């Protein structure tokens, strides 16, 4: 910042509330203010969307400009002097809020947005005045079904148009529009359209009030009672960054977390709803021959069955890694299968690809979160992963005698599933009792993705950290720990105690993971005190 330094052409210096700030050319005043900790109130502005400047909440005084300027639309210019706390802009904020609240219904106690509502926050911080309304409020439709996921309460809407822009600019589908004028202006679907794009639930996130609510989350849980834990979506290979919102060891919704390298501010509806599986047909204890069992008994049974085949006929033992499971889980199982048991038949399991869902926005045809990771681990181990067709064939021709499977997702044909039952040993480590897990001789309960500290590798090869929101149900253990115990029961020298140790060893061994960082372990934060939302 010395005087001799020539000013860069790419940055401009402006003064906001007496503080000088250097920002990149083309930045708007609102973002420039945010960079020095001045939070200018706004409804319609969203950093991930185009600028509408229709809410007029962000008006500020710019010196030499004849009128107040919307700070979201005003681009910084060298030497610009901005006041955000002078009498004029303070009054403008107050008056805009009074306008916005005029026809707002008294809905906070029944509104899903209460507690994370921008309108609540801005009113409390900037206005806090009494109502002066002495005429009846304008009423609008309360329950408008906009599409398969979204319900509109037109009264609550403050007409910021964020939702319209989300559909237009993120989903590239024009499905929402404003109609009428003045205090009769109302949001609705565009002629002939329904709000059914695969990114429609982003409209709920960007809605600054409770006008748009997700059918999935409506009336289920008060927002301020939730806790949030950062994680990564396990719905497909994109690996959108998410926040798990949970309470009492149960997930209530998934919300996208900003990451410009992966998903920006968005995620798809399908990904949001993946949390339901965290509670459906969950496995809380080991199962031995279809009956509940203890860990010790199940492990002993698995070990005795496997050891017989391993000592007599090693070539007929197979292991299935899972693209549904984390790097750590697969690394430990790969190590057991390859380095210790020295097996040849290592397959890759996971959901079958769904090419119809792929688009060039966020959704990927590969509905497994960690295919890239498992492939990298196999490549580093110097072996080739065999596909599902090969597994079908090996089951059909009786090549296999024993199989250890990670994860319940294995798109086998009904015949192959039947054949798997007739193996000498079928040991499955899964968190749900469905698919191959339902046919297992020995079924070991493992933690699901929301319950583990682990990493997954997305389609671009980015290794991303997931955080455990709450402990797994019952006696379930993280899969790496279950594999370790299984190995120990088979007298294999395997001794991991913490996923970070596995991660460190793995990053050193698997070249594509080099430079990946375990990061800090996050503790769940109370949404009420998180401060960022609303």
């Amino acid at each position, binding site marked *: 910042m010395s005087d001799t330094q020539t000013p860069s052409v790419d940055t401009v210096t402006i003064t906001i509330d007496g503080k000088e700030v250097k920002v990149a050319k083309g930045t708007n005043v609102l973002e420039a203010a945010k960079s020095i900790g001045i939070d200018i109130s706004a409804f319609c502005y969203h950093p991930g969307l185009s600028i509408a400047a229709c809410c007029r909440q962000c008006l500020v005084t710019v010196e030499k400009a004849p009128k107040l300027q919307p700070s979201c639309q005003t681009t910084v210019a060298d030497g610009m002097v901005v006041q955000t706390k002078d009498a004029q802009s303070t009054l403008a904020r107050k008056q805009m809020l009074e306008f916005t609240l005029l026809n707002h219904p*008294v809905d906070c106690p029944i509104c899903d947005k209460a507690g994370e509502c921008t309108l609540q926050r801005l009113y409390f911080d900037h206005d806090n005045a009494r109502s002066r309304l002495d005429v009846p409020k304008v009423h609008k439709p309360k329950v408008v079904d906009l599409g398969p996921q979204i319900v509109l309460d037109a009264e609550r809407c403050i007409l910021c148009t964020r939702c319209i822009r989300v559909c237009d600019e993120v989903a590239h589908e024009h499905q929402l529009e404003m109609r009428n004028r003045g205090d009769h202006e109302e949001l609705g679907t565009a002629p002939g359209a329904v709000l059914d794009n695969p990114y429609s639930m982003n409209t709920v996130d960007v809605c600054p009030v409770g006008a748009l609510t997700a059918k999935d989350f409506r009336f289920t849980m008060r927002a301020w009672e939730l806790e949030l834990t950062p994680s990564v979506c396990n719905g497909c290979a994109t690996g959108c960054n998410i926040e798990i919102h949970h309470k009492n060891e149960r997930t209530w919704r998934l919300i996208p977390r900003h990451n410009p390298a992966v998903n920006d501010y968005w995620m798809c509806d399908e990904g949001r709803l993946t949390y339901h599986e965290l509670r459906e047909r969950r496995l809380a204890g080991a199962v031995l021959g279809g009956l509940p069992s203890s860990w010790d008994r199940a492990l002993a049974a698995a070990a005795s069955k496997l050891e017989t085949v391993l000592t007599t006929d090693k070539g007929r033992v197979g292991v299935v890694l899972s693209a549904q499971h984390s790097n750590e889980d697969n690394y430990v199982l790969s190590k057991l299968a390859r380095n210790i048991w020295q097996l040849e038949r290592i397959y890759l399991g996971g959901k079958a690809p769904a090419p119809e869902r792929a688009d060039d926005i966020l959704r990927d045809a590969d509905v497994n979160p960690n295919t890239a990771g498992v492939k990298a681990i196999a490549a580093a181990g110097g072996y080739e992963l065999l596909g599902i067709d090969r597994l079908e064939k090996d089951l059909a021709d009786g090549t296999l005698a024993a199989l250890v499977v990670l994860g319940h997702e294995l798109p086998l044909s009904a015949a192959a599933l039947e054949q798997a039952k007739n193996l000498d040993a079928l040991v499955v480590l899964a968190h749900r009792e469905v698919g191959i897990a339902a046919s297992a001789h020995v079924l070991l309960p493992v933690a699901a993705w929301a319950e583990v500290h682990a990493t997954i590798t997305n389609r671009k090869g980015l290794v991303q950290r997931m955080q455990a929101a709450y402990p797994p149900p019952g006696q379930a253990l993280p899969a790496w720990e279950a594999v370790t115990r299984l190995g120990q029961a088979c007298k294999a020298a395997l001794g991991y105690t913490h996923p970070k140790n596995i991660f460190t060893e793995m990053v050193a061994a698997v070249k594509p993971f080099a430079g990946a960082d375990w990061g800090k372990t996050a503790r769940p934060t109370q949404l009420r005190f998180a401060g960022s939302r609303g």
Partner: protein
Amino acid sequence: MAELKEYVLGRKNIEDLDNADLQEIPNELMTVNMGPSHPAMHGTVRVVLTVDGERIVKSDVQPGYLHRCFEKESEHATYTQIFPYTDRLNYVSPMINNVGFAMAVEKLLGMEKRLPERAQYIRVLVSEVSRLTDHLTCIGASAMELGAFTVFLYALKAREWFYSLLEELSGARLTHSYVRVGGVVKDLTPDFTTKLTELLEKTEGVIDEVEGLLNNNKIFRNRMEGVGGMDAKEAIAWGCTGPILRASGVDYDVRKDFPYLVYDRFEFDVPVGTSGDCLDRYLVRVEEMRQSIRILRQAMAQLPDGPVMIDDPRVALPEKSEAYNTIEGMIRHFKHIVDGIRVPPGEAYTFVEGGNGELGFFIKSDGTGRPYKCYVRSPSFIALQTVSELIQGHLISDVVPIFGMINMIGGECDK
């Protein structure tokens, strides 16, 4: 009598003991636990005494049996939610704790000079009533521990009058949570002053009775006079405040020296002792009750009309009708309850004259609805550290009056 001696010393009368017998008398030190389950230990403190016969050689005072993490819990509660916690500090004078905490938050909000007059007067009224209940409990209980059970009954009878009065006012007999940031939660009941006037007169009678029973009572004086003395220099060095410091002859009272609320408008005296022993502490407390009655009478005479809550939307809840019928009132109510009062970042320390001395609250705010740190300077905790020194060399029986007159309150000491 001879039989008793024999029993005590083992088969021989004391006159008949010879040298060989003296060897047999147990003379090594003995360690005795006094409390936490001991009637004179206020239920919540353990004193490990090392005694040589009846004489205390060494003692180890161990508080913590009533630790409730007041300070840590405060970091997880909104400013309004902390009031019930403060009730449980010195639970025989909860109103003073309420007032002290509210004043710290108000200082952070910069509104301490703008409080409605009536609210300030009400705060003085309830504080002084609380001081009466505190001192009545202290004197009554201590006298009982020395055998004067009648005094206990008289004092507690008067205390109960005041508890009933405060229950009428706040809805709770003990844990009032009556004060709020910016004022008090509701106005006085219509006949509060009438009832209080009546009670004060009756209480003066009770104080006379108590004094009549104790002041020239030989047993009482023998056990109090010259016991547990502390001179002014020592008391200041220990950091003692309140009746203990004043009994040692130091004229220091927060209400006089750093007047808060409207205390500078009242005429009252600060009683001081001369020798700083247990009797002086008792006498100071009795006189303080009389002074409190004086303050209460003046406060009732001056009590102005007006609102009892500051008209500032940052701290005042909206009227119920507003909260139900307007979105503005609804949001304000919602934000106050869920997020808490928004207190600007900063630090503040305020102190008031509590029942046992200077009660201070330090709050550091980070701009959210709950304190980043809340520290309480509890007079009991500071007074308790002197106990071990004061009882050194005294008899076990002296622990009772000394401890009683230190008036350690578990809730406040353990925080």
